[in-house]
């Protein structure tokens, strides 16, 4: 499971948010369930009265910057939009997204 997905999950749990951001990354609910289990096994989260909460370890993990693993200056509140990353291009290359992608981005901006 992607480390950035785990960090996004921790951020969502910390903020009391929903899982839409993970779904937008292409994860299915069953995969999110596996991610939650992984986070529990690593002791980043625990369940208290039917609610998931971050542990101290989870809080530290959430604030790490990948891949350096140093603590982020912004406190770990913001996750990169991994689903929009593109491959690094040569300096002389030009990035032209597909029309489907352009339309999707236009829809999201409205």
């Amino acid at each position, binding site marked *: 499971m992607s480390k950035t997905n785990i960090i996004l*999950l921790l951020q*969502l*749990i910390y903020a*009391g*948010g*929903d*899982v*839409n951001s993970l*779904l*937008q990354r292409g994860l*299915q*609910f*069953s*995969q*999110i*369930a*596996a991610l*939650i*289990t992984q986070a529990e096994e690593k002791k980043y989260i625990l*369940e208290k009265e*039917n*609610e*998931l909460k971050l542990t101290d370890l989870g809080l530290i993990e959430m604030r790490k910057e990948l891949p350096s693993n140093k603590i982020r200056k912004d406190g770990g509140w913001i996750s990169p939009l991994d689903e929009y990353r593109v491959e690094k291009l040569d300096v002389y290359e030009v990035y032209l997204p597909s029309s489907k992608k352009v339309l999707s981005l236009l829809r999201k901006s409205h």
Partner: protein
Amino acid sequence: MIVEDIEGGLLHPSVIKRLRKLFKKLGWRVNPEDEFEEDDTAFDKFCLILADLDNEERELIFQLTENFLVCPSPQYRLLVKSALDEIPQSIIDSSGEIFLLPLIATKDVGKAKSSTSWLYSCLAEVIPRMPAFKGKRPRGYTDPDKLKIHNHRKQALILFCDDFVGTGDTAIDALTYYNKELKKNDDEVFVVTLVAQEKGAEAIMDFGFNIVFTKIINKGITDSNTLDKQKATEVMKKIEEKLKIKTGFNFGYKESEALVSMMRTPNNTFPVYWANKKKDGTRWASPFERT
């Protein structure tokens, strides 16, 4: 599954965790078994419908699903054997011939129904391996009328088979036809089913016939010991308000309130588990859609 497929509401990780725990408790698979499995598993579909419900509606679905019974076709052989084991050995031993017939309404003869499909499995795979039937050579017909070929039968054991008995309406229709057109006085008749609702089993017995089954189930809300029935009824009505359900199927056919899915989900089960459309025409991702 793409984001645009999600209708309405939002889902917190705690809800997904709670659903995963419930699936584990019930022994249901969370992840797809292999690459050929459809994209949306039952777990994914449950999450989609939970996302479309408010907190009290979700709570009701969680509580009802605790008692939901799933009997997929790979389990049928064991379940069939369990049901057949309930037939008294003395009756099997004293029977001249044994006939297996589908328990279907007269209007459904010739159609592909679940009662006809597992009849073959019963005849070919289950009964030959049961010591109780040693030395017997049962025959099966998909059309009950074929029993007329055996009008000279003596002390025959007639087994009317279906995987599920709900209200008992289908059974009574089939047994009424048997009484009228097929009966011989020295026949011993049993209805053999895997899962029966209590009301349907009682209807069959009140009609004067024996029934054997593997599991008996009750009405999900009316017979619950844990739910506030009035509140649960109100909440279920609120859920069903969103769904496209044919008249006569609210809370399941004739308000059966069943919580079961077999090879096919019976329409006696609450529609929230099998309906495929909402009233506004959008998709309802039911986990046990009737195919």
